[in-house]
């Protein structure tokens, strides 16, 4: 379900922590309806990118907009349009699932969230646990709750930071199905940080590869598979891209 509208627009985004350059002039566009897989080695800057786009972090320089709202000037309006699932999502352990979701729903501006919570839990097929304390949930269950809180207010863009981290194969499969449903049935654009290349190949429509704060590759999955037709798997493609990164002369796609 792609169209030509750029929903995430990033220009020359830079982030420096003391002497470390986490992002170095990142340029990136994600179109509405895409499932964008953001790949890169540990410390490449993927989480930093997500933190900036979700307005948790202020960039050192550069600009970005989501759904037309500037991240620096219109943060409040922007956050109404996005949902965010952090890596290793945490909740109030002493509260029940329902109490947690109600609290976050109210913070999202939903005045009477009870029906919306039930509707969301049904959508992700997670009913029957409303009155259980989050402290009793497994990792997979917490991820579902994480997705639930992120989509309660019907966002247009969903940021997922390593959503499959720590999940067993069944959990990964369930998550993949949820992401696909969200994209196909609700039209939500997905921006996903991940290491799990097997899932990227099954879920994502577009991929980008970040290396030491530079975007060294971006293209649709379809084009990527055609381009690297000699490689057997996405893992080999990724490793190939990573090996050739030094041949890139700028941040734009250099694998034409």
């Amino acid at each position: 379900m792609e169209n030509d509208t750029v929903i995430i627009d990033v220009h020359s985004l830079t982030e420096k922590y003391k002497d470390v350059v986490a992002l170095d002039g990142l340029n990136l566009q994600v179109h509405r309806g895409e499932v964008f897989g953001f790949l890169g080695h540990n410390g490449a800057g993927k989480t930093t990118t997500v933190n900036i786009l979700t307005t948790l972090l202020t960039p050192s320089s550069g600009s970005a907009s989501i759904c037309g709202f500037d991240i620096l000037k219109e943060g409040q309006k922007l956050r109404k349009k996005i949902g965010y699932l952090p890596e290793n999502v945490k909740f109030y352990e002493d509260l029940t699932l329902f109490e947690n979701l109600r609290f976050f729903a109210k913070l999202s501006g939903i005045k009477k969230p009870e029906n919306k919570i039930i509707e969301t839990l049904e959508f992700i097929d997670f009913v029957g646990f409303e009155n259980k304390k989050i402290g009793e949930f497994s990792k997979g269950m917490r991820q579902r709750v994480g997705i639930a809180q992120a989509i309660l207010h019907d966002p247009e863009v969903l940021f997922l930071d390593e959503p499959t981290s720590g999940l067993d194969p069944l959990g990964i499969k369930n998550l993949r199905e949820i992401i696909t449903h969200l994209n196909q049935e609700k039209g939500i654009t997905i921006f996903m940080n991940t290491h799990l290349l097997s899932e990227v190949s099954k879920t994502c429509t577009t991929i980008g590869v970040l290396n030491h704060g530079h975007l060294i590759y971006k293209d649709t999955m379809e084009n990527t598979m055609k381009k690297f037709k000699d490689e057997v798997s996405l893992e080999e493609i990724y490793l190939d891209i990573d090996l050739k990164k030094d041949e890139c002369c700028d941040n734009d796609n250099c694998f034409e």
Partner: protein
Amino acid sequence: MITTIALSEFQTLRKQKIFILLLMIFLSMALFSTYIGWSAKNTILRIYDEIIKEMGTKDLNAVPSNPFLNTAPLSILKNMVIYVELIGSLLAIIIGSNSFIRERRAGVSKIIFSKPIRRIEFVLGKMLGIFLVLTSIMGVTFAISIFSVALVSAHILPFAEVLKLLFFYGVSLIYMFIFSMIGLYFSIVSKSESMAFLIPIMIWILISFVMPQITSALDPAALLNPTNIQATFPQSHFFTTVQTIIHPFSISENYQIIGKSLLEGNVNEFPMRSSLLFLVILIPGCLHAMYKYNACEEEMSE
């Protein structure tokens, strides 16, 4: 949005065992304080009568008049000043510290701040929640005082005295609110949970013991006795200068003065300036700290 945050303060505090324990201690002392005050006063009156009897054969004009005959009706509550200073302010520190520690401990700051809530709304919600909790505590304590005074003295306080008592608890609320804001501030900026609690305790020691020692040479035991015994400060330029600088900020001393004015009626001063000054510094301080808070940092360590 602000009210959501504020109401959640109530809900979370009622599950905190430490808070419940300290609250029970505070309310018990509020009840007990009336009895202590009444019992001490009663005993003194009987001792005075005993003294008169002992001197029965001597010249009665030589016996000083009974100093407790015309004491203010609220004077039996004078210990409340100390209990608010000790237990009340500690309770307030725990309420304030716990306020944002909970979010940091749970690791939910990232989710919260990715929602359409401004940081200022979040902090104001916290402050409102804390204020409401403290107001409820003071309200209950006020009711306990009215009830216990009626119980021990077998008569209801006159309206004017009730108003004075209400005003006293209003001032106590502000005093405790200051410490809760100190707690809130350090819950935002501290790296560990223990520090978020310990640093406000250190500040409390500074305010409650160090400042009065420097400004009025009050011994610690004298600070805890409503009948303060003041030592003599050496007359030197240094001490006078230090006193002048620190005295306006000595909120615990000023609070004791206000307490005396309202409950014992033997002083007529209401030095609120220092309390208001603290609030003027602390409230924007908390707002600023929350604005600068990095939600992407690792969760708080213990």
